[in-house]
């Protein structure tokens, strides 16, 4: 009798040796195409819009106000004195520091005013200097008051420093109209 050979079943297998290679390729693609670029810049909060008819004039004592003017030629005026942009930091710092312990209504207000034709880059440089001097004062204060770095402060302490002690008040004045 002829023996009927049972057909041997072929084992079904998906070859998975190359899988890791494929996954590697995918990984590489995503690695290369990913841009983990963070948006960096100078943050600011604009004031609420008030129509010109309703605008009120709030008197501000001269002692509180640091007014910074930049004209279209790039000349910088801080409280009436012509200075260079890199000097803003050293001029502002003592004034910010002197007001740390005053009430919130007596803190320094930095007012930045430009012409319509002032170069944007100059404006950013000036704003940068102002921000920088505030940041330096905040850092120094964190170190003396809490004995730690500004970055290591707890949220509450951070709030005290940035809201109560050294709030950053920058006022952007409307540029003067040139005819």
């Amino acid at each position, binding site marked *: 009798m002829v023996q009927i050979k049972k057909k041997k079943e072929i084992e079904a297998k998906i070859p998975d040796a190359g899988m*890791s290679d494929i996954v590697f390729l995918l990984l590489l693609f995503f690695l290369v195409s990913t*841009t983990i670029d963070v948006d960096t810049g100078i943050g600011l*909060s604009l004031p609420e819009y008030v129509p010109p008819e309703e605008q009120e004039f709030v008197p501000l004592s001269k002692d509180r106000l640091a007014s910074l003017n930049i004209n279209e030629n790039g000349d910088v005026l801080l409280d009436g004195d012509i200075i260079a942009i890199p000097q803003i930091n050293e001029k502002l710092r003592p004034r910010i520091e002197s007001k740390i312990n005053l009430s919130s209504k007596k803190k320094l207000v930095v007012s930045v005013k430009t012409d319509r034709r002032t170069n944007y880059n100059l404006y950013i440089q000036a704003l940068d200097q102002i921000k920088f001097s505030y940041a330096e004062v905040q850092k120094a204060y964190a170190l003396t008051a809490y004995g730690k770095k500004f970055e290591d402060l707890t949220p509450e302490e951070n709030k005290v420093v940035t809201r109560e002690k050294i709030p950053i008040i920058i006022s*952007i004045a409307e540029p003067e109209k040139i005819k």
Partner: protein
Amino acid sequence: MTFKKKRANAKQEIPTSSMPDIIFMLLLFFMVATTLRERDVYVKFKLPEAVAIQKIENKRLISYIWVGKSGKIQLNDNLVKIEDIQDIMYKKRVELPNVIVSLRIDKESNMGVVHDIQQELRKADARRINYSSMLKQ
């Protein structure tokens, strides 16, 4: 006298069977972290440089406004006129109350256009802005 070299009896192989799993995890991380939808920018611009800059943590909150060398203005995906900014940003703000507007303005621009945009943003009540700038090296 011959010395027998001491060797551990254990297999000297690194188990690689779970390598694909690990790579898959890495892959998943990158897929999630990637923001593929890059915006087409129609204007030419060069950002100013600054030192005291901050990061914007939440990318989903950002709306972009570009101002190019030629004075063209692009809001998110389209080129717009200054007068249109108010309407568009107001709608955006209704959807996303704490929207941050990232201003990517060419450093040779004039303050006039910057001021006009700011006025529009104030009218639209989108008041959190960020002057995008690069870190000065």
